[in-house]
């Protein structure tokens, strides 16, 4: 009885939090994909020294520090640089930059997986580097990286829970407030919180496994 009562009272609030999670998740996903695409093309193995250095520093710093620290730096340290963001902006921006680095590495590995002959053929046909990327390399690379990309999307959605620590009222924060402020049974509330995350992430995982099986067959037939 207690379980049903707590569930009935908490689920409406949790769904509101879920909406904000979806909102933050989708916006930062789009930004992260954009950053990742640029970072994947102008990557660590570029021939231009500046691109190589900036890329190396960006990826190393982002992959070597926890997401929470990056979030705190964006929210608490950037104001001394003159850039003051509200929690929502800080959360979305940090999510985008953090996952953008990982997506850049994923896309880079996809681009480098394309046999060099394709690149040579494109150049011999007189294509500019831009056309080469757009028509030959990227379509194939992006098909190959869809499974690890799906995994990274899962990670992005789970990282939105950490942005709750900056005051964004997304799913995890709503759950915490229900437990702490309204003193609901934490086991019930957090089980529902986990259930909602599960419902978003597990289908993504199943999809990525299916896609990996399907695409592996295709790639080996090249």
């Amino acid at each position, binding site marked *: 009885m207690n379980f049903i009562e707590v569930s009935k009272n908490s689920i409406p609030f949790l769904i509101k939090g879920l909406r904000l999670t979806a909102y933050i998740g989708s916006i930062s996903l789009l930004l992260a994909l954009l950053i990742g695409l640029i970072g994947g093309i102008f990557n660590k193995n570029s021939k231009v020294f500046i691109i190589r250095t900036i890329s190396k520093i960006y990826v190393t710093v982002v992959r*070597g520090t*926890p997401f929470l*620290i990056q979030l705190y*730096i964006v929210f608490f340290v950037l104001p*001394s640089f003159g850039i003051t963001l509200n929690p929502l902006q800080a959360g979305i921006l940090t999510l985008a930059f953090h996952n953008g680095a990982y997506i850049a590495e994923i896309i880079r590995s996809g681009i480098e997986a394309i046999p060099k002959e394709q690149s040579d053929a494109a150049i011999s046909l007189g294509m500019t580097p831009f056309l080469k990327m757009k028509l030959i390399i990227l379509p194939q690379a992006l098909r190959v990286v869809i499974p690890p990309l799906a995994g990274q999307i899962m990670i992005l959605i789970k*990282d939105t829970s*950490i942005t709750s620590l900056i005051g964004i009222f997304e799913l995890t924060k709503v759950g915490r407030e229900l437990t702490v402020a309204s003193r609901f049974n934490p*086991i019930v509330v*957090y089980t529902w919180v*986990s259930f909602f995350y599960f419902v978003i992430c597990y289908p993504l995982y199943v999809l990525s496994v299916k896609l990996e099986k399907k695409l592996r067959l295709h790639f080996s037939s090249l």
Partner: protein
Amino acid sequence: MTYNLLIVKQYLPIFKEAFFNTLQISVVSLVFALIIGVMVALCRISKNKFIHGIASIYVNAIRSTPLLAQLYIVYFGLPYLGIRFSTFSTGVIALSLNGGAYVAEIVRAGIQAIPKEQTEAALSLGMNYYTLMRKIIFPQVLVIVIPPLVGQLADLVKATCLLSIIAYTELTRAAELVAATSFAPNEGYITSAILYLFLCYIIMGFSNYLEKKLSREK
């Protein structure tokens, strides 16, 4: 931007203690995560549908939910049932359960990477399951699996940052303390970031060293 080295020097003891706390809890959690992970991986490749099912539910549930939610369940949920642990133990429990699922996936992939012919050859020589695992499968799996596992250690180190919510004094909590008591968020968070980078750099270097050593032994 201001970065006052004097403030950093003043709070150096806190950072040092936090650094070693982070390292300590990461290593302890890794040990438990390895134990849980190997057992769960063996369950996942089992033919017994019940064992396979439970292990799969465990792995998929942990991997599809955020570590923060799991931490809240352990930290807020267990006292509700009457079980109280220290902050260190709570952190280890949450990190081990979380890490165990990822280790299980890594180990399972390693085991399934061993060609089936090895298993068939060993069984045809009359080995039982236990000997097969100990003498044939695991030595090869170990070589395959060590680099991703060291990467998992790096992930664990970065995951300890969430333990700051539990008020365990690791690097992120140290940064919060410094930021709060001296009104100097720059010194706090940037120093913590540098220390995390340093820790991950060492772990990555160790991983490269292990990879070279293992590929030489082959």
